[in-house]
């Protein structure tokens, strides 16, 4: 087990180097001079522009910039944004907010999705199942910004149950509505995945054996059916955590959540290379860790899946 984890961590190093290099290259390859855009429609004087370029190393070739950046990271220096804030502080400020939002969304979609999927699967073909299928189809086909705007309009402006945007500090009560919106992207998928998995598991021999032994439904459903149906759902929810981190951009924009997605978007627009690359690096790290945790969770759900040396 420990050896397996160690090997997985070693594997992460080339992945991280590769992704930072690629992202840095893409930011570098973005056409246009980000410093020129700082001046709006006004044309700055060339000497001033030259000085600013030197300060942000934009006058250096791409590969030099990249190694200057990497060297900085090794010294714990992630660079500074154009507004003079260290990127490490931006990371420390925005990641907790987005992770909180993502965990809330994940919780909502997982608990809600699995419950509805389970009931649907157990009552295949009944009214509940049919309506769950129709509703999940609607959610799958609606783009997230539509759900977000409608949610904001109905619950924020018309009913006044939630704040229209998230207030400073992003308290949990403000995040509930955005979390529901964020969860809605994949909620329907989890319902359908659980439902299909439950229907399949019900037909398996060990379930029939359990019934044959005279076990009650109260025991069979959670222990035999649900637990064995969860593996594809957990896999999906884990990869989905990455989607949530990135997909938060739209939701964070609409609800003005001071998180990763919104900040990353603005950094891309402004061409702030160090900010963009640092954000993506941390996202890749989180993604790798979540995937590792999920792989370890498999063993917990199904003892047949074991990681031995």
């Amino acid at each position, binding site marked *: 087990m420990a050896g397996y984890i160690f090997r997985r961590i070693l594997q992460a190093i080339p992945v991280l180097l590769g992704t930072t290099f690629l992202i840095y290259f893409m930011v570098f390859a973005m056409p246009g001079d980000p410093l*020129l855009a700082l001046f709006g*429609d*006004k*044309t700055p004087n060339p000497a001033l522009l030259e000085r600013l370029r030197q300060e942000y190393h934009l006058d250096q070739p791409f590969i030099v910039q990249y190694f200057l950046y990497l060297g900085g990271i090794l010294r714990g220096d992630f660079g500074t944004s154009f507004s003079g804030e260290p990127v490490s502080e*931006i990371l420390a400020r925005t990641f907790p907010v987005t992770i909180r939002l993502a965990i809330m969304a994940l919780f909502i979609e997982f608990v809600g999705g699995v419950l509805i999927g389970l009931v649907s699967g157990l009552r295949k073909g009944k009214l509940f199942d049919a309506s769950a299928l129709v509703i999940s189809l609607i959610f799958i086909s609606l783009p997230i910004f539509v759900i977000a705007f409608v949610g904001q309009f109905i619950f924020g402006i018309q009913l006044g149950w939630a704040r229209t945007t998230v207030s400073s500090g992003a308290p949990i009560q403000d995040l509930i509505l955005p979390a529901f919106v964020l969860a809605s992207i994949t909620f329907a998928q989890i319902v359908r995945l659980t439902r299909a998995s439950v229907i399949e598991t019900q037909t398996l021999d060990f379930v029939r054996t359990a019934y044959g032994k005279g076990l009650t439904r109260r025991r069979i459903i959670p222990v035999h059916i649900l637990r064995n149906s969860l593996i594809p759902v957990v896999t999906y929810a884990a990869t989905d955590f990455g989607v949530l981190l990135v997909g938060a951009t739209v939701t964070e924009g609409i609800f003005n959540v001071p998180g990763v997605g919104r900040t990353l978007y603005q950094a891309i627009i402004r061409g702030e290379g160090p900010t963009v690359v640092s954000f993506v690096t941390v996202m890749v790290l989180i993604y790798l860790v979540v995937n590792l945790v999920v792989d370890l969770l498999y063993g917990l759900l199904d003892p047949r899946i074991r990681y031995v040396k």
Partner: protein
Amino acid sequence: MKIRRLGIGVIALAAASALALSGCASGSSDTPTGSSSAVITANGSEPQNPLIPTNTNETGGGRIVDSIFAGLEYYDATGAPQLDVAESIDTTDSKTFTIKIKPDLTFTNGDPVDAQSFVDAWQFGALLSNEQLNSYFFEDIEGFSYDEDSPLTGLTVVDPTTFTVTLKEPRADFPLRLGYSAFYPLPKSAFADMDAFGQSPIGNGPYKLASADAWQHNEKIDLVVNDEYKGGRKPANGGVTFVFYASQDAAYADLLGGNLDVLDAVPDSAFGTYESDLGDRAVNQPSAVFQSFTIPERLAHFGNDEEGKLRRAAISMAINRDEITDVIFQGTRTPASDFTSPVIEGWSDSLEGADVLKFNADEAKKLWAQADAISPWSGTFQIAYNSDGGHQGWVDAVSNSIKNTLGIDASGAPYPTFAEQRTAITDRTIQTAFRTGWQADYPGLFNFLGPLYATNASSNDGDYSNPDFDALLQAGSSTTDTAEANDDFQKAQEILLKDLPAIPLWYSNVTGGSSEAVADVQFGWNSVPLYYAVTKS
């Protein structure tokens, strides 16, 4: 047994989530209520640069800097300059100015606001190696250099409350510029650590930062009243909280949801509905933003000759500005009738030759045919724009208007980002007409003309040059009489209407609104609300 292990896993996960969730939660503080102590909330955007006056050149930081600093003057609701820190600004030749400031003024940290604090701040802002984005504001002062570090020799401190400014050549509108943020004073403490100062500035204006870490990046900034301020912008409220929005839609939703008091940017998506949503709390009035597209003289068929002038006039007359501002912008733009803005003193809608800005299909066709007789046209007329700025709608409409009227091929040429378009324009590699706009730095006609169309001017992206135009600008700048100066500037514009280095399109309106909780919301000449005048019940 197995069940228990699964159970423990679930409990551990739940506990971990709960920790993560509660760890960073912090309650939002309620805004205090009560008449003059109530804090108003207004929309803003994360400042793009540290909050140093000479380094702040966009509205996100500008509205904060203007609130926490007081300059020699401020601009009132009509855009007229009023003395703020200055007691008097005198000149006899528009070249040397004697500035007296009021005695016994201090910054919020106790440093004196004296002649030295202005001179030091200007020297700092102008020095090349300090890399200040607004350094060009000092270019007219003696000693300024774009090429090397060079002190402003034109600044002399006479006594603690008096200093003189000597310009390289006469600039009649120099006093008018002094309300702009580049000319604000800085406290002595700023120079010790300018980076730290930019994150937590100390000013002398109507407001001050609520605490040293009041700037919460990407979220908001809290300003409270500075009781030491003695100028004319006395706050009628208890402070301003600028909430930073990434999108105008979010800000507008907050205004409707009652979480925001003052909004100065209605999103495009609400143009059709905001006036009915807000009723008499909606604002829609022209602002000091001029929009156009520039046709560089180096383009074939568009040189500064007979053919080029005919084609420019034909294209200008082929654009139905009334219809486009109505349909695309739902009345939130005002069709242009000159090269400046209606909120600027000296603006006129009856300049000689202004007919060229009116839609006239027959005349446009005739002029185009005359140009074709000189040298036949083939190809596509394209207008470049940045597609990250919401310009596609009107560019397509303008292109279609040109296409349908003149019977030539016309289309938009999108650049993915603003940075990319600006680079192509600055490098002069762009081979089409392109979108241009100008937001005035100070409310004067010269500011719309000099930097854009004077020979070799800094933002003369189309490389326009006309000695007669330059001479009129010079004449207007040399006089000490404002009316006389504006007369020269209008004559200069009449030359522009003939040459059309840029095709004027429309003036942006400021579109905004306020909540039911506030009153006395007025918008200044620069489309920013006068926050100090807003009252909240």
